């Protein structure tokens, strides 16, 4: 495996569209729920242990060779908010474009043909990790980190937070991020033997509700 490939996949500068999404933090800022570094950290922690765990496991399962189309159905069942399904598929299309350029593989081509509207982004990322020779836990790490890195970066822009504070909180969440990635890849390994229902489906009611509220705004900075 190439460790550099993991750094590339997890890099916020990898041109896969992530910069235009706030991971729900734009809505949380508008509602006053996130207003400083501490509330941002609480937001990131809650997101990490809910949708972060769920999406990291989907990525790990894809990286481990689980059928990506079954995983895509599982992702739909775990994403009741239409706005979040649309965002995940749009980001999946964008990730697929970048992944096919960086890590061409027959599996990515097959997924592109089977899901022309895009598969859920973590599944595309997992397949890209697989194409790059990475392990399932690597894909889980990339997704778990992105689940907090995205909102933290967006909050820096939205609240003019000190970027050093944002980096500090991401570092502080490091051990929890590792634990989530490990749990996600463990579940993904079990899913190979026990079926897809053992993948985590940790969810948050507020992320789902706020995502639909945000999608209905006429003026916003971020796509989700």
């Amino acid at each position, binding site marked *: 495996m190439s460790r550099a490939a993991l750094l590339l996949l997890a890099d916020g500068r990898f041109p896969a569209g992530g910069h*235009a*999404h706030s991971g729900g933090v734009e809505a949380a800022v508008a509602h006053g729920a996130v207003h400083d570094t501490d509330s941002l950290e609480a937001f990131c922690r809650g997101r990490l242990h809910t949708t972060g765990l769920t999406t990291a496991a989907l990525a790990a399962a894809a990286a481990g060779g689980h059928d990506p189309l079954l995983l895509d159905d599982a992702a739909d069942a775990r994403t009741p908010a239409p706005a979040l399904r649309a965002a995940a*598929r749009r980001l999946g299309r964008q990730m697929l474009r970048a992944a096919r350029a960086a890590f061409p593989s027959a599996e990515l081509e097959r997924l592109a043909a089977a899901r022309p509207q895009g598969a859920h982004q973590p599944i595309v990322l997992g397949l890209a990790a697989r194409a790059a020779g990475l392990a399932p836990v690597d894909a889980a790490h990339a997704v778990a980190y992105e689940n907090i890195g995205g909102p933290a970066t967006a909050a820096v822009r939205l609240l003019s937070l000190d970027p050093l504070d944002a980096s500090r909180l991401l570092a502080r969440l490091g051990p929890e991020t590792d634990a989530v990635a490990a749990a996600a890849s463990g579940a993904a390994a079990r899913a190979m033997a026990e079926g897809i229902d053992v993948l985590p489906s940790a969810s948050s009611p507020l992320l789902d509700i706020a995502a639909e509220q945000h999608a209905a705004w006429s003026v*916003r*900075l971020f*796509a989700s």
Partner: protein
Amino acid sequence: MHLDHSLPQQHSPSASATRPDGNRRALRVGLGGPVGSGKTATVAALCRTLRDRWCIAAVTNDIYTREDAEYLLREAVLPPERITAVETGACPHTAIRDDISANLEAVEHLEETLHPLDLILVESGGDNLTATFSKGLVDVQIFVIDVASGDDIPRKGGPGITTADLLVINKTDLAPHVGADLDAMAIDAKRQRGDLPVIFTSLTSDDGVREVADWVTGHLAQWRAGAAA
């Protein structure tokens, strides 16, 4: 317009000159420049001037979502299905230069749903004087500045001023009111750009966008000649 309900079939990793069916795709023209210089007005004027002859669509990269797209809709320069707003996460310059994936999605979606298109105008968000378009997104780019923001802008240079395929210096009608020296601007632009073209415009006058429209038409003719070749 939502991108999620109908499908862009192609996922070309870069701005390939041909569509999956082998036909030449539409020419993609980027319009960049600082906020308030008249990018959206230029796009609107180009649409009005060229729409009877060519099949056109537009993509906007707003700082706040849809503001510019709404302007184009209000002015009715194109039907709504021909205008797509890309959300840029407070960083329009990233969406046209560093991570062009959302814009590529948008232009490909327009190509798929409106085929055959001749021309797609991609307007930047104007958040950054240094922002230029990636060559992976557009074929040629126009940088729009205006005389009222200071006649020293061409002298100061920057990548948009020096490298854009066309520099448009807009609002010449305001020059006497703001004390801008158009000759000095022309000399500075020439010094920065060498042989690259510069056009002075006043969009408030009748047909004020004509020269720019002719420049675009010239590139479109070249692009289509490339298709025939």
